[in-house]
């Protein structure tokens, strides 16, 4: 995926990355619409600055940064509108297309993971990032990224055992 800032190219790049990027942003956003706004902003910034699309770590770092800003504002808004926030909690939109009960259990187990483990897992499994790219996006070492991934899988396995 060469980064030449033409209409055709960004569409090709984005259509490949979009589902994973939106899923990544969903970790901090309550709804798909919010996650899409975050991804839109990050991608537009990334593309306008003509960053190399091969540098995916930078793109995910941009998504994460914008998502965290969004989360801070969203939390402030939630505090102001506490009743409205409790209603939205009950109507959280799904992040995956669930086909059976085992997948539902897996998604439930994913929700139980600590954020730092889940974000590494999402980047690795659904975005195919290398540990080097994950490390660059999260500003951690590759060893830390790899160990967070292993802990996430171990925790998932443990949480799925009783089912």
């Amino acid at each position: 995926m060469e980064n030449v800032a033409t209409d055709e190219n960004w569409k090709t790049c984005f259509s490949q990355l979009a589902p994973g990027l939106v899923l990544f942003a969903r970790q901090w956003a309550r709804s798909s619409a919010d996650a899409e706004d975050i991804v839109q902003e990050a991608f537009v910034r990334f593309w306008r600055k003509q960053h190399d699309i091969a540098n995916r770590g930078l793109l995910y770092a941009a998504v994460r940064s914008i998502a965290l800003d969004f989360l801070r504002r969203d939390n402030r808004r939630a505090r102001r509108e506490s009743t409205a926030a409790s209603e939205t909690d009950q109507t959280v939109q799904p992040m995956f297309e669930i086909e059976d009960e085992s997948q539902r259990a897996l998604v439930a187990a994913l929700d139980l993971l600590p954020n730092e483990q889940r974000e590494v897992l999402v980047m690795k499994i659904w975005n195919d990032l290398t540990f080097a790219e994950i490390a660059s996006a999260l500003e951690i070492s590759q060893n830390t990224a790899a160990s967070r991934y292993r802990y996430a899988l171990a925790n998932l396995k443990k949480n799925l055992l009783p089912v």
Partner: protein
Amino acid sequence: MNDFSEIEDKLRKLRPVQPSADLMTRIERALAEARSGESLHRENGSTSTAGVLPREHRFHVNWLSLGLGLAAAAALVLFARFQLERPVKKTPALAAITPAPAFSSTSLTAQFVPAGLTQVVYHTRDEGLHFPNNSEQPMRRVRSHTRETLRWRNPITGASLRISYPSEEVSLVPVTGQ
């Protein structure tokens, strides 16, 4: 890592929800706006994301704040200079060798009196045992780094003066036998 291959397979079978169809259109519009209407975008600072997304940060010089800040800094410098110079000018040189004359109200305002001494030891290093000259008893040499702060205060005006400097001290502590 092999232990986790089964769970990795299960995870890969989970399909993330597809983004909405209009996301691509929105990005296309945003990129087009960015390219063609850069100047317009700069003028009104609007975004196409319903205000959800952060605006770009540009460097703006706020001349009013800068001017006020500089004026305040200049006033502070003048005030400090005035306060520091007054004792030198007003205190008579003979005061040290002749009985102090009766203080006028102006000389009182220019007087700074010692208000305190603070000595903070921020690092101590034990440099081990040593045998100083003419001593058979071993001594422990301890090197400590301190910061001393001397303060003066004018009781009339409330102005204060502070001098702070680092210092290093080496002390020899006799070692008691056991």
